[in-house]
């Protein structure tokens, strides 16, 4: 198992190295020279030369690449020319919000998706099955931000004649007037830690709509995956054996069907992490939710490349780590995979 883990971790190195090369080339390929992008259009030639010398833009390309990679390794993603703050600091400050949102979205997707997928498979071809499969199709084809708008307009802003449905907050992470104490910047957690339960409840209310919007695609995917996987497993020989030896149906479902069927579902959930973070860009934009998604949203609107590259490195890292964890979990569950 240790060898498997080490090999799996070593395999990450070429991917991360390639990513740094790609990112470096991308930054160089951006329109306009980097110093001007940093200083703005009105900068004097003198100031540009100073920046070029300071950041080493006048050095040979290989030298520049090495400097760049060195900075990345130290976690230095540069300073956002728009806000004048180091990208990493803003990231860390805003990251808890996005984690909170992503976790809420995943909880929504998993808590609803696995039971729905399971029930649909149990009565394959029935009404519930047809409804679930159709709804999951619709969930995949609606653009995330359209769904976000829809939810916002119906449940937060209020449609004429349907105002009674608009009971949830339309934007932000917490009502400002609540004046909650923040320790970890995970607002729900903060509320629980400090005993300000009303603050925690308020933060949860603010999470509901964004989490549903963000969780819709993972939900659809989890439902379909669970359904397909359960359908596969119930036709296996060992299920027939279990039935033949007279195990109670509940036990078969729990111990044999679900446990085996959930393996691919776990992988799919792991693979959703990157998509969740990217989807957060769109969702947080609609709900003015102050996480890294809306930070990136602002960065894209202002062509703030420092933030953009930081975000790509960040997401690629998270993605790589999540894939690693999923692979290791798999190796742990299924020893056959370790030798591959």
């Amino acid at each position, binding site marked *: 198992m240790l060898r498997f883990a080490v090999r799996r971790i070593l395999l990450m190195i*070429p*991917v991360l190295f*390639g*990513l740094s090369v*790609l990112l470096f080339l*991308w930054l160089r*390929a*951006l*329109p306009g020279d980097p110093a001007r992008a940093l200083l703005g259009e009105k900068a004097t030639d003198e100031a540009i030369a100073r920046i070029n010398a300071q950041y080493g833009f006048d050095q040979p390309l290989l030298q520049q690449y090495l400097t760049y990679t060195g900075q990345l390794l130290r976690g230095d993603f540069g300073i956002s020319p728009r806000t004048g703050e180091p990208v990493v600091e803003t990231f860390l400050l805003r990251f808890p919000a996005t984690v909170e949102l992503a976790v809420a979205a995943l909880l929504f997707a998993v808590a609803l998706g696995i039971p729905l997928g399971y029930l649909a498979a149990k009565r394959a071809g029935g009404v519930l099955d047809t409804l679930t499969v159709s709804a999951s*199709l*619709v969930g*995949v*084809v*609606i*653009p*995330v*931000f*359209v769904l976000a*708008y*829809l939810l*916002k*307009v119906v449940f937060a*802003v*209020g*449609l004429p004649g349907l105002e009674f449905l608009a009971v949830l907050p339309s934007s932000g992470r917490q009502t400002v007037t609540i004046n909650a104490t923040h320790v970890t910047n995970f607002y729900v957690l903060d509320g629980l830690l400090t005993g300000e339960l009303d603050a925690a409840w308020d933060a949860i209310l603010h999470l509901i709509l964004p989490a549903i919007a963000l969780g819709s695609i993972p939900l659809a995917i989890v439902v379909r995956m669970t359904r397909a996987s359960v359908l596969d497993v119930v036709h296996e020989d060992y299920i027939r054996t279990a039935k033949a030896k007279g195990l109670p149906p509940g036990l078969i479902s729990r111990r044999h069907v679900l446990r085996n069927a959930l393996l691919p579902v776990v992988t799919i959930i792991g693979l959703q992490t*990157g*998509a969740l*973070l*990217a*989807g957060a*860009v*769109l969702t947080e*934009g609609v709900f003015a939710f102050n996480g890294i998604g809306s930070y990136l*949203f602002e960065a*894209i*609107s202002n*062509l703030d*490349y420092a933030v*953009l590259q930081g*975000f*790509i490195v960040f*997401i*690629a890292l998270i*993605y*790589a780590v999540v*894939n690693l964890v999923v692979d290791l979990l798999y190796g742990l569950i299924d020893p056959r995979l370790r030798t591959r």
Partner: protein
Amino acid sequence: MSPDEPRPPASGATDTDLVPDIAVATAAGLIQRPPLLVEAMGDVAADEEGTSLWKGALQRLIRNPSAIIGAAIVAAFVLVAIFAPVLAPYEPAGSQWIREITPYSLPPFSPEHPLGLDPFGSDLVTQLIFGARQSLIIGVVSTLLGLVGGAILGGLAGGFGGWVDLVVMRLVDILLSIPSLLLAVSVAAVMGRQPLAIMLAIAAAQVPVFARLLRGSMLAESRKDYVLASVSLGLRRRTITMSHVLPNSLGPVLVQATLSLATAIIEVAALSYLGLGDPDPAVAEWGRMLVKAQDRLQSAPHLTLLPGLCIAITALGFTLLGEALREALDPKSRR
């Protein structure tokens, strides 16, 4: 290309890896390969097959109601896109009625404008119809670009194997580790806001998917018996790869292309939402229509919902068709 053509030394070398004895023997001119045998075998195979893979798939497609619905939506979408100038009641993006628009209100629906006006004083029906055209162009072009790029990478990896495979697939891994939307944003950031940039941006996100798919499918095919048979017959590796393995590996790629059209149409809208869409206001595009109407969300929600609905229905059509195609081509579902 006929099999008795004189072989260039380079490909002889690659064949040697596969079947040393035959390759050496043919290279030395010891075995005369009968060209007629190969051709005759092709004829026999065609006769005895009865229903081909594609014919069978088509029959299964016709019997599948969701395939019919998907195909109907796709057909309607393509027809609307092509005949937009005939179908639409007015010129697109004319802003002819800009004087009737105020910051707080839009004129009510009328027989001249069944869905009213958009915030720029153009007829909404006309804009929606012309939006189909834009979605079709961007969707098809970007999917084709992604398909070609992915097919080249995947074909190289699957066709050559060895270190080519290793290098190409690591590159694909890197591209896959960047979420598609961010990849698209990066490309759009480099190229600026122009229509080609949007298509390339969406295509870039699809390249790794196609590359992986084609490689996997080619690897699976190349282990099959008919490939072994072709090798035994002394066919060149290039011929085997290009005229046997590759055509047989295209099924999953075709399915993915159909599904990618749906993704592409959704992603155009997402790029528009992020402010990276086509900057030309004269072009009607669903994503931008939706985004530009967001400040009227409460007073005129249909301005946001109708383009959103168009995107969703079109994407649904391609998704239904793609999934039905996948089922039809899947040997497991043939019962």
